[in-house]
């Protein structure tokens, strides 16, 4: 917390990390052009998918990034990986500025920075055997140690994620959803990365299978001291796995803090609405809970509301919300230690 600007002090608050975090994202912006269709195409607007996101991630830490679909959480993950080139802002990984790296230099960084994709049915090449899928990163990045060592490593990886190495010559379609996601994780682990971006790694899985993958991720983190950026829309899974949580709405982080603060004392109205909407698997508790049902849909990111972006659906909204954008800072009056981007932040127990 040595920096003086609001943004970066905001991003590092709440983490008990050492002086330099592994990943430092500052004012990350990603816009996509909206083009007019026709013979002559021209840009008629910008989709502001991510508009000024800042956070830190320490080694061995898990940050959960939650929000509804279309809030920019996946784009944030991909912009960090440089799979989408950020429009502006900075992504520093291990002291290196990633946004300025060439494609070749970036490839070297990917050894330490890997991603697990959302859909285990679409992210594995159906025409490759599992062996080839998991070995591909070794071939791309590997030393001249040869196929034999690679094969040994693949077997090791498959065992690590709880698959039988004897199944390595099978094709993805022969595996169930949970097993496929494990293959995706094995592939991401192949190069012993220091950080993995997990983009909705369990959303496509059945509950009973999902629990197995979540446990696997936790065990791997303990063993290999990985850092996770855990992107998900399922708040109960994030509560289980993440130490810190950031809530996104329409391209911006609206609340960020330690897990227990965010879940037990949410101070931003959107976080409260989101948490109260999560169904609890307990009939009595579920029926006695107070539920905040938001009206309407998320506004279009092409033309976001002025001021606070949540104001169009917020029951606390007043004139100031339309004119002045609330910064993401600790709000003394809210009674919560987490950062909140709301003029009228106030903690409230909704679980």
């Amino acid at each position, binding site marked *: 917390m040595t920096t003086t600007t609001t943004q970066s002090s905001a991003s590092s608050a709440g983490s008990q990390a050492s002086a330099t975090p592994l990943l430092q994202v500052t004012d990350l912006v990603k816009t996509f052009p909206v083009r007019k269709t026709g013979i002559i195409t021209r840009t008629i607007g910008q989709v502001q998918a991510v508009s000024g996101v800042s956070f830190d991630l320490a080694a061995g830490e898990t940050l959960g990034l939650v929000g509804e679909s279309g809030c920019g959480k996946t784009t944030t993950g991909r912009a960090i990986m440089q799979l989408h080139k950020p429009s502006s802002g900075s992504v520093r990984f291990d002291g290196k500025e990633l946004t300025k790296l060439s494609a070749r230099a970036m490839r070297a960084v990917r050894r330490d920075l890997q991603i697990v994709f959302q859909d285990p049915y679409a992210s594995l090449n159906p025409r490759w055997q599992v062996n080839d899928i998991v070995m591909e990163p070794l071939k791309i990045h590997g030393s001249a140690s040869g196929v034999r060592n690679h094969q040994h490593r693949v077997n090791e990886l498959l065992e690590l994620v*709880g698959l039988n190495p004897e199944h390595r010559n099978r094709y993805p379609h022969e595996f169930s959803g949970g097993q496929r996601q494990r293959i995706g994780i094995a592939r991401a682990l192949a190069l012993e990365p220091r950080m993995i971006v997990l983009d909705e790694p369990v959303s496509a899985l059945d509950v009973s299978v999902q629990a197995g993958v979540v446990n696997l991720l936790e065990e791997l983190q303990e063993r290999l001291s990985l850092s996770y950026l855990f992107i998900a829309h399922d708040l109960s899974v994030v509560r289980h796995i993440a130490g810190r949580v950031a809530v996104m709405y329409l391209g911006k982080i609206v609340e960020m803090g330690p897990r227990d603060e965010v879940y037990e004392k949410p101070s931003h109205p959107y976080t409260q609405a989101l948490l109260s909407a999560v169904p609890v698997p307990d009939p009595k508790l579920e029926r006695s809970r107070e539920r905040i049902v938001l009206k309407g*849909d998320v506004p279009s990111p092409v033309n976001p509301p002025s001021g606070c972006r949540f104001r169009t659906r917020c029951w606390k909204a007043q004139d100031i919300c339309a004119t002045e954008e609330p910064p993401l800072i600790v709000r003394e009056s809210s009674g919560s230690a987490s950062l909140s981007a709301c003029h009228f932040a106030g903690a409230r127990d909704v679980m």
Partner: protein
Amino acid sequence: MSTENVSGSFQPGGLGAPAATIAGERLLTVDELSVSFNTEDGVVRAVRNVSFDLDRREVLGVVGESGSGKSVSSMAVLGLLPKTATVTGSINFNGRELVGLSYNQMRAVRGNGIAMIFQDPMTSLNPVFTVGWQLAEAYRAHHDVSKKAAFAKSVETLDLVGIPQPDRRARQYPHEYSGGMRQRAMIAMSIINDPDLIIADEPTTALDVTVQAQILETLLRIRDETSAAIIIITHDLGVVAGMVDRVQVMYGGTIVEAGQVNEIYEAPRMPYTVGLIGSIPHVGLVGKRLTPIKGAPPSLMNLPSGCSFSPRCPLAIDVCREVEPDLMDTDRTDHTSRCHRWKELAEIDNPQKLFAHEEIGTIEDALILQLANPDEISVVDDSLVDESLVDDTAADRQSPAAEVDATSAEENPKS
């Protein structure tokens, strides 16, 4: 909260209290329903001996993993199964037998008597017609009215499910709707003919939690306004907890446990239900490992002998592997279970422990996995049902056999 009418509505009482069902008014009786598919590889027994009743205004939750037969059984009620399906047993809806009805007779029931809300609102609406036109078409299929009157009816129904500016929205195409709005449009289509029964197949799976809350709330409001009974099919125990009256857990094509919603959550009498509840992350488990069920659901083409859950069940004994248990009454009222050992299960204080396990496979484990005799896994002696079960590889050993199963299960038609 003086500003609450601005945008957020507060609802003390969650998603609504359970409705007092009108006792005795039976709407649907399913008796010994079985569905099988003849395929080149053999007979797939998707649904086996399913029997249940549903009263008017009752909300029933059907819970199970993919491949448990929960969708196929509801498709059978609607007569929407392909011709390759063999349906036996009886489905009595409002005093009328549905099994064996001709195509045209069934058409009269569909939409009018029983309506369906499909899982994926993105693909269930026709992209080249306006939403209002599609709703009007559904209405005109059962009512002899002019197009204009039918369109007016569709605007009225869109309003009922909470779509703002319904007359403008009715003239729009599905791609102009958001996901939640499309699902509302699907609900509107299902209720436009005022059915007695609405079957909702994973109605909120593709939606965000905030939208999910809106949709579930809409469904319950519709139930109150139209007095229809609702069957909700889902794999998410959280979704059903707050809104259904009864729960029915399905596994391997049959009902393994059924009862009032509170009963199922508080006093499960079937190990599978215990495992399912333990798989959900919740507050009490923060900082601890979740307890997934080892292995994968059985292949419906090649069901294990005896109880279909026995290969994954920590309580399985010899009789479980030999004799398939009946759906029997338990110590609780109106609560049935298909488990030989529900009494033993009832005596365990914290049944979640059964599924707890420690390490994931390492090299040594993998060797043990190959050699292990599956019989050694299960707890034969009740005194062992304790922490001792939790340790080391006991649970792990079970997985390789089940994983092999999983690959064959994958090839089955998704139910």
